[in-house]
């Protein structure tokens, strides 16, 4: 085959350009650490990478939401742990008040203990976390419990009947907390109470108990002690429910963390450059580029017949 002098130079120019392009692509991959820098680098993988990115973002967002939910739930669980002592204190005070021979001053001291326990329970009931009242349902920007000064309705519930919850999947939600109404046995708009056997809220029961202790009304004390006992068990049960919510949230958080790991792994598989291979390939392309340059220089210097004339 006859090869014209211009063909040599055209071929060499093309070889240098192609080697330069390949080296450029590899350099970009190595410096960015990513195999895909433009959609056309690998269109299918580019589309997969964007989906994996979206999945990762969704997972991170869910984690953030779940972390806040877990914190709220943990704060409520911790607050509810503080209810056991005043409840038991109130019950013990009532029991002490039933002792034979207790004088008026002794009964007044017992009543005061009950009222003091009630105040502590109100304080716990108004616990907040980062500006959110834990037992107010979804109306959680104001304290759920306020003392009225009215003997027949000593504490008013200002929250609502809707539990705080978060969305954990399309159409699926998870509860974070119980409401003050549930916990303290307040009546809803229809007059229904969570513990139907007790027709008063916890605070009214305690206030009535304190009053009966003061006056030494034994039947009243017995009746309200029974109610207090029932509500004490109810509070304990509600704490168990809140603990259950926490467990579910913890599990969801663990799942979200696992999903994050999976999303990151998938993304790395799709997007990240295999650095060892890329470096080896770059070395090989560098050699090819140098060879093209050397060949060009050699051929440019190659003598023709004219040099021998």
């Amino acid at each position, binding site marked *: *085959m*006859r*090869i*014209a*002098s*211009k*063909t040599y*130079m*055209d*071929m060499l120019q*093309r070889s240098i350009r192609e080697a330069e392009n390949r080296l450029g692509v590899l350099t970009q991959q190595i410096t960015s650490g*990513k195999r*895909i*820098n*433009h*959609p*056309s*680098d*690998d*269109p*299918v993988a*580019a*589309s*997969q*990478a*964007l*989906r994996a*990115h*979206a999945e990762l*973002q*969704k997972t*991170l*967002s*869910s984690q*953030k*939401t779940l972390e*806040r*939910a877990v914190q709220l739930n943990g704060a409520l669980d911790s607050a509810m742990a503080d209810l056991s002592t005043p409840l038991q204190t109130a019950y013990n005070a009532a029991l002490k008040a039933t002792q034979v021979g207790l004088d008026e001053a002794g009964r007044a001291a017992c009543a005061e203990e009950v009222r003091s326990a009630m105040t502590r329970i109100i304080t716990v009931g108004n616990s907040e976390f980062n*500006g*959110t009242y834990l037992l*107010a*349902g*979804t*109306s*959680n*920007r104001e304290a759920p419990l306020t003392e009225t000064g009215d003997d027949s309705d000593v504490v008013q519930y200002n929250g*609502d009947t*809707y539990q*705080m*919850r*978060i*969305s954990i999947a*399309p*159409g699926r*939600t998870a509860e974070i907390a119980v409401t003050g109404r549930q916990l303290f046995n307040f009546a809803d708009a229809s007059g229904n109470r969570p513990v139907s056997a007790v027709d008063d809220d916890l605070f009214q029961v305690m206030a009535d108990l304190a009053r009966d202790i003061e006056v030494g009304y034994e039947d009243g004390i017995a009746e309200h002690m029974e109610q207090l006992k029932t509500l004490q068990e109810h509070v304990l049960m509600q704490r168990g429910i809140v603990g259950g919510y926490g467990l579910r949230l913890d599990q969801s958080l663990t799942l979200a963390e696992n999903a994050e790991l999976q999303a990151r792994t998938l993304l790395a598989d799709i*997007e990240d450059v295999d650095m060892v291979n890329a470096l080896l390939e770059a070395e090989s392309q560098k050699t090819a580029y140098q060879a093209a340059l050397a060949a060009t220089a050699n051929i440019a210097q190659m003598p*023709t*017949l*004219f040099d021998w*004339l």
Partner: protein
Amino acid sequence: MPQGILELAKNTLLAQQVAMQVVGHNVANAQTEGYVRQVPVMEPIPGATWGSAAYSVGQGAQVTQIRRLQNAFTAVQLDRQAALLGHDSAIADTLSQVEAIFTEFDESGIADALGEMFASFEQIGTDPANLAARQEAVVRAQLVADMISGRQDSLQQLRTEVDQRLSDAVREANRLAQQIADLNKQIGAAGDTAVVNDLKSLRETAMSRLAELTGAYCIEQSNGQIDVMIGGRRMVQGTEVIQLGLELDSANPGMHNVCLGSVADPDGLGGTLQGLLDVRDGQIVDYISRLDTFAQTLADAVNVQHRSGLDMYGTEGEDFFTYDPAGAASSLQVSAAIQADPKLIAAAGSVGAVGDGSNASEMAQLRDAKLFTGGLLNAGEYYADLIGQMGTDAKAATDAVAVRETIVAQLKADYQGRSGVSLDEEAADLLRYQQVYNAAARLLQVSQQMMDALFAIS
């Protein structure tokens, strides 16, 4: 007799001089694009009969023609492939610019912004009374709107630029057509003389470039002139040029069609011009349309969900996004009222309490809602699909260019194998002609000695 030898030697010297000039011309143009190697055609000069002798002695050699070693078949193929290369290159270059508009792999893309927007809705869902979270949601959503409208504007701008490139290509094509017509005129006037060789090389170079721009081809006439054809229509006929032009396309506002003389959209148009038209009215329009669908569907879904909730004032939500249906992507905005007062985000569900973020959570769940392609894809997937499509188109175009370049390079090598200049070959020819020249000069010397011998007798 010595006079005859002198004449013969003189003829030979002149012929070899011409041959060596041709070699020199070839050497000088060894690297000239489009140059076709020339060779002298040497023929013996018939001689006269001497006296009654029944023989004649020739009068040496003469150059009767300088022939171009044109590889006509490959040249036609080369022009055809150049036209295809021009077409594919125009598409590949433009799609590469589209890719530059959609930067999605450095965390500054729409996909990331979309994810952040849904995350901010989710954040409101868990803490609806948090005004900072509401403000962030407004900012995130507006960022998505800005990115979508920014990319849409860039696509429209690119489409306009492609249309303007048509004008440059048409101007260049007309200049080349005029150059071919002028060369036709000179070639016609020169007749069958050596000068036409270089004029033809110039004309072929112009033709090759014109083919790349327009997909034109040529038909050689018996007078040595060529007619340039686009499809079945003449663009150059002898020395006459029918110019390409642009006219406003009534069906495509602001855009132009190519016309040949008075004929709009001539059949057979190819090369760069057709490539520009294809990518302008094909891929770019498709991307614009899909981005409009993306913006409108996303905005509608968010608006429907937003309207079903209650804002912090307890009133029903208004549209969260606003847009002009005639161009959803380029006009997408977060409602001005919500931008001014994030409390108007209808985060609450039917309860309407300050801590109720159920509707915002539902808005966040739209991230997974299969809103697109007949319920097959969610917003992120649809957008990823669009980016994948852009990547596929760009890669297909780049691959096509690489294939064409390989074919063109192969054809060029093939073409130059016959028509190109080899310096070694020229040196060998130079030696050959030089040797004959030396021999002819020696003949002159011998002739001189013969004359001297004759004069010595007298």
